[in-house]
């Protein structure tokens, strides 16, 4: 990377849409996920070895990044475009890349800073195969935009991976026979502008206003990573990460119909569950929470309301509560990121597709009612997480409504 390059990509240039609890960067909706979610999702996809998942694992990333860079690089020369692409990658928390050797022939890129490879090892240990498909897709998109190539004529692969024990990640990008999926143009985001059931909690606005804009502080550090709340965050193109879910379930359905969908869906829900559990736990034990939220909390239900007041500033839609008790809760999300994404890329769905949102709500219920978090005793380890799940009656999840199904909002019932 060049020494102190000018800042060509700055997340602060992109405003947060307060009405829809949404943020977009150059036409792509952006959402945070944690390393628990991203790795669990990807592992579930890769465990279905009979699916040619590399096609969409690379293709989904290439598509979203291509769309962004094709806009952001307008008017920039090649060198400036490279710097912008490096900075965007780092800002989003994917690690570090040095594009200085990319030319008309492509690039053989080497890096030892990779969100996917480093956090896979943290969660699962060694992998038999390379895991940083996102970066392969990212580099393919950079090459296509900068050298005016078609994505379908790019051969992109990861040839070594730190998750497999290699010293570096290496990616090879060159012109050739395309080796990943290409997707048709998608619609613009279509919000469902319906009256919202508000959270109805007197402290909501105070807390939300305190955290509004905080999302912009979550940017990659000197290693290109975003450690926060005891997890590693990454700012994803929403369509990239959601396409992984949708293409996975589509493939499972093609193989085994509803049975395949069910097996896949259970693991997608669990990915959201782990995300909600670990990330929300970290957030609710942070000093920011202690300072700005904790003083308003009297009951366990207030902890949930407090959390929702915070996360509504992160770009995932407007979460709210229809019913809430220890045994049963009904949550809504207006303009949730999964449904907006599905509608934009695929149109209508025959069944709810908001696994990450719904798993997240379930993880939150587990956290509040089945752990001692509110008394200051969080569970932070994978083994602690497993033991707690085994020793308590778990919550069940029923996804009842979704925008992609024609409803006005996402709704999920969590019960035991």
């Amino acid at each position: 990377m060049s020494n102190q390059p000018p800042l060509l990509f700055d997340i602060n240039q992109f405003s947060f849409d307060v009405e829809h609890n949404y943020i977009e960067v150059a036409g792509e909706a952006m959402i945070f996920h944690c390393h628990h979610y991203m790795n669990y999702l990807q592992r579930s996809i890769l465990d279905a070895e009979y699916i040619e998942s590399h096609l969409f694992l690379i293709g989904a990333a290439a598509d979203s990044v291509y769309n962004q860079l094709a806009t952001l690089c307008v008017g920039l020369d090649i060198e400036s475009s490279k710097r912008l692409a490096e900075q965007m990658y780092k800002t989003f928390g994917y690690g570090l890349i040095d594009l200085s050797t990319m030319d008309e022939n492509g690039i053989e890129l080497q890096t030892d800073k990779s969100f996917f490879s480093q956090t896979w090892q943290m969660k699962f240990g060694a992998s038999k195969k390379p895991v940083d498909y996102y970066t392969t897709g990212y580099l393919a998109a950079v090459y296509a935009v900068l050298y005016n190539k078609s994505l379908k004529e790019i051969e992109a692969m990861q040839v070594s991976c730190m998750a497999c024990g290699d010293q570096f990640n290496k990616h090879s990008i060159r012109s050739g026979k395309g080796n990943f999926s290409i997707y048709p143009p998608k619609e613009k985001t279509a919000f469902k502008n319906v009256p919202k059931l508000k959270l109805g909690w007197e402290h909501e606005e105070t807390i939300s206003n305190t955290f509004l804009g905080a999302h912009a502080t979550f940017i990659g550090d000197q290693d290109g990573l975003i450690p926060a709340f005891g997890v590693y965050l990454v700012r994803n193109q929403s369509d990239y990460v959601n396409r992984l879910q949708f293409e996975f379930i589509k493939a499972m359905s093609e193989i085994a119909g509803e049975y395949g969908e069910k097996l896949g869906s259970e693991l997608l829900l669990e990915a959201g569950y782990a995300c909600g559990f670990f990330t929300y736990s970290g957030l609710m034990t942070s000093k920011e929470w202690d300072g700005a939220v904790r003083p308003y909390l009297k009951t366990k239900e207030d902890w949930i309301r407090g959390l929702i007041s915070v996360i509504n500033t992160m770009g995932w839609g407007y979460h709210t509560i229809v019913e809430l008790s220890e045994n049963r809760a009904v949550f809504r999300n207006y303009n949730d990121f999964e449904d907006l994404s599905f509608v934009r890329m695929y149109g209508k769905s025959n069944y709810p597709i908001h696994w990450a949102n719904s798993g997240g709500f379930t993880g939150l219920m587990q956290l509040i009612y089945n752990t001692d978090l509110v008394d200051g005793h969080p569970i932070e380890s994978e083994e602690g997480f497993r033991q707690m799940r085994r020793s308590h009656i778990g919550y069940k999840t029923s996804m009842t409504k979704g925008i992609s199904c024609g409803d006005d909002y996402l709704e999920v019932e969590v019960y035991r």
Partner: protein
Amino acid sequence: MNDIKPVFIWAQANGEIKIVDRILLKLLPELLKYNQKITAEMVENSAELFVDESLYYLVKKTAEELVGGHCE
């Protein structure tokens, strides 16, 4: 025919929470070959679950690989 339920019970006691779903996902083509559509609910709600011997050993091997241990 062998009862596969004890293998799943062992995996649940020693592996991740969704280990049954993960084993089934990994073995989906094989399950279909044996005309089996086992789910986690079926495992939970049935006293025993008999499958062809070769499928039994496949499930056992996969469970042991995923969990990292030996199922007696």
